[in-house]
């Protein structure tokens, strides 16, 4: 597994998200109320809503289009909705956000 530096943690707002563009689609990088980050596909399995625009609460995000809620640890939809989003490995090293290289360069998705 190799890690790619995508930016400083302060570039992602507390309880917010930023977008990473890749050839295989957009990835959302979420930050909770702590120095804690998650990465997942930006697209909601329901109607493709941009998850990086959602409200981040606890370790979950709510899709802005129709309020589906996803657990950022597992990617599973919460409550009555059924579905999941792909979660990508991401970690923090001295305040830098490192994303797993496979999320960015994997070519099989095409």
């Amino acid at each position, binding site marked *: 597994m190799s890690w790619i530096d995508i930016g400083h943690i302060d*570039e992602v707002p507390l309880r917010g998200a930023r977008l990473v563009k890749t050839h295989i689609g957009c990835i959302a990088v979420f930050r909770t109320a702590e120095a804690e980050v998650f990465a997942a596909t930006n697209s909601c399995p329901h109607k*493709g809503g941009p998850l990086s*625009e959602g409200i981040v609460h606890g370790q979950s995000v709510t899709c802005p289009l129709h309020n589906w809620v996803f657990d950022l640890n597992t990617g599973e939809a919460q409550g009555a909705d059924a579905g999941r989003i792909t979660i990508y490995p991401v970690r923090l090293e001295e305040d830098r956000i490192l994303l797993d290289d496979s999320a960015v360069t994997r070519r099989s998705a095409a």
Partner: protein
Amino acid sequence: MKQRLVVIGAGMASGRVLEHLTDAAPDAFDITLFNAEPRGNYNRIMLSPVLSGEKTYEEIVTHDDAWYAARGIACRFGEKVEKIDREMKVVEGANGHIPYDKLVIATGSNPFMIPLPGHNLDGVIAYRDLEDTQQMMGMGPNNKVVVIGGGLLGLEAAAGMAAHGVDVTVVHIMGHLMERQLDEAAGYLLKKSLEDKGIKICLQANSKEILGEDGKVRALLLDDGTELPCDLLVMAVGIRPNTALAQEAGLATGRGIHVDDQMVTSDPDVFAVGECVEHDGEVFGLVAPLYDQAKVAAQALLEEDAAFMQKTLSTKLKVTGCDLFSAGDFAEGPGREDIVFRDPSRGVYKRLVIEEDRLVGAVMYGDTADGSWFFGLIKDGTSIEEMRETLIFGPAYQGGDTADPLSAVAALPPEAEICGCNGVCKGEIVEAINAGADDLDAVRAGTKASASCGTCTGLVEQVLQVTLGDDFQMPTAQPICGCTDLTHEDVRRLIKGQELKSQAAVWQDLGWTTPNGCHVCRPAINYYLLTDWPLEYQDDPQSRFVNERKHANIQKDGTFSVVPRMWGGITTPDELRAIANAADKYDVPTVKVTGGQRIDLLGVKGEDLPAIWSDLNKAGLVSGHAYSKGLRTVKTCVGTDHCRFGTQDSTGLGIKLEKILWGSWTPHKLKLAVSGCPRNCAEATCKDIGVVCVDSGYQISIGGAAGMDVKETELLCQVPTEDEAIEIVMAVTQAYREGGKYLDRLYKWLGKVGMGWVQAQVVEDLENRAALVARFELSQSIYRKDPWAEHVKEKARTYAPIADFTLEAAE
């Protein structure tokens, strides 16, 4: 063979007799109904709401022609009964005789007219029937009216006319108003609130003479020499049982027609009910005992066992904004003790009279929620020894339970009376609910509870809630979301009361079960905090829905719409050119004109937002907030600038309002409109706040909607100047901001607090109005600014991806 029943008088008592009779035994009698008034039965106690304009006559008709027809009742309306011949058992009407086997006399009462000199003048009336009401409704802002009598009826008449802007003076002979129902302190508070409504009140005033001119009333002269000019004089000093027919027929009468416990007169085939009777030395004026009598009479006619019993009565006044309740006996006396509670700032007064550990009387003003509980204690003679310390605080404080109004209702015994007008007790309502009546309308239809004056509607709902449990949802009792058990109302109150000024303080002190809320509660809490503490609390974009965080409306494909503000719907060729250029430059696929008179650029990519805003800013265009729970647009017509019908500068006022209100956050979106004349081209009467200009000023109405619900606005007030109109709009906006539940449109908030409350806060109480305006201005000193310019300057970077590997790969 069917018996022949004749009924004289189609009033509320006899109407109820006929209902019971035809329900229980549809074929027992051939019924003929005489009425001197040319109409059937209507709900006479609702004449006051008709007078004040809250109801129409059609709404208070209880029995229409179809009802009588369906029950086979022969109606002889507008026909006076001349005589009752008891020997022949015949009633002689003006148009012919009719024989009877049984007779019911329900001739009601006559208003008592004080025989002052001049009482026969034109324009001297009583307050008794529809004709009197219509005469009063004919009065307007240019008329003066004097009402003699400061009792229930006189005050309802006065308040009803004052609501139409009539200059009303009430003349009362006693030292305080409603002295039969209220003590002096409550009478004082009542006088104050009526005076706040613009009604003049003269106490201890003796009328001497009614002065006239050309046979028409001109003024009332008091014996201290004061002359009160008037165009109409209403005497509401009392009623007298109408016993004339019965007396001539030789029936036993005193003050009223004597009846026994079965409502039978001195002739076993003749019954009497209602205000014309005297039972055990008492005569009757309130509706509850009349309905009891009607029930007994119907049962007696069917030869069932029944007996009428007199009960303790309670009184409420049907004047919007004057909340009073009295029951029992509250005169001072040896062996009697008082418990008194006063809250001067809220105008609340409660007094309980206790005799030998029993509650014997209660008077309440300003907060009457516990009235029926106290009334129950009085009627049942419950010992209050144990709860004496906390009695005055009501049922919520008894037994150490939570302050839940439902527990008070749940604790009521089955025979506790819920609806005083119709004498419906809790047990009957519960029975109806168990038989399938699962909402208010069904209970009303089945039991008549809350179907007359309606003041017990809340109680009936609570009985429904207690009985049905989870099947009946009172929307207000819902917690905000799964993160808390508190309701929106609780949280608003606690944020203010405990001075919670950050989200963290709310989560911690109010015991949130999640670390930082969820997408449901966070936007609400963020809104409450920024409204209540505009200086101390910093708006949190991460607690906002994406539209408000990015100041643009997200579309289904993830692109955004951009709506620049056009003040009052006015634009210029330069602005239009800037919009057109921006649409070209950013490949905007759709350009649309919105319902609020603005131009919408749809399909803008999220990362282009700062750039397109920057371009629009350069042409002087700012955010139109088309995405916000806040001020949207002020729609206008062209007004006096161009229109031949315009009465005021509606466009100018619209622009001013928009410039004052823009940027403000509200519980839900806020749409305004200003129309230059009553033709209302700007459609102001379906907006949250609408202004319709008229020759004499500005009519401000609120609470309209044209979405999922379509509602017409209700008139808040009319003011003469533009400055005052602006002030009122600011004040009502602030009141809604401070009180509304997040995501309640203005009309929903209005439905909860009531127009009377809003008028008191915003129109009548000038000091409070000024305070609301000042708080709004304070908040606007932070929020009246263009978020687009700010984001272009400080946040543009956040609209772009944090990293873009598609570019790297392309290199």
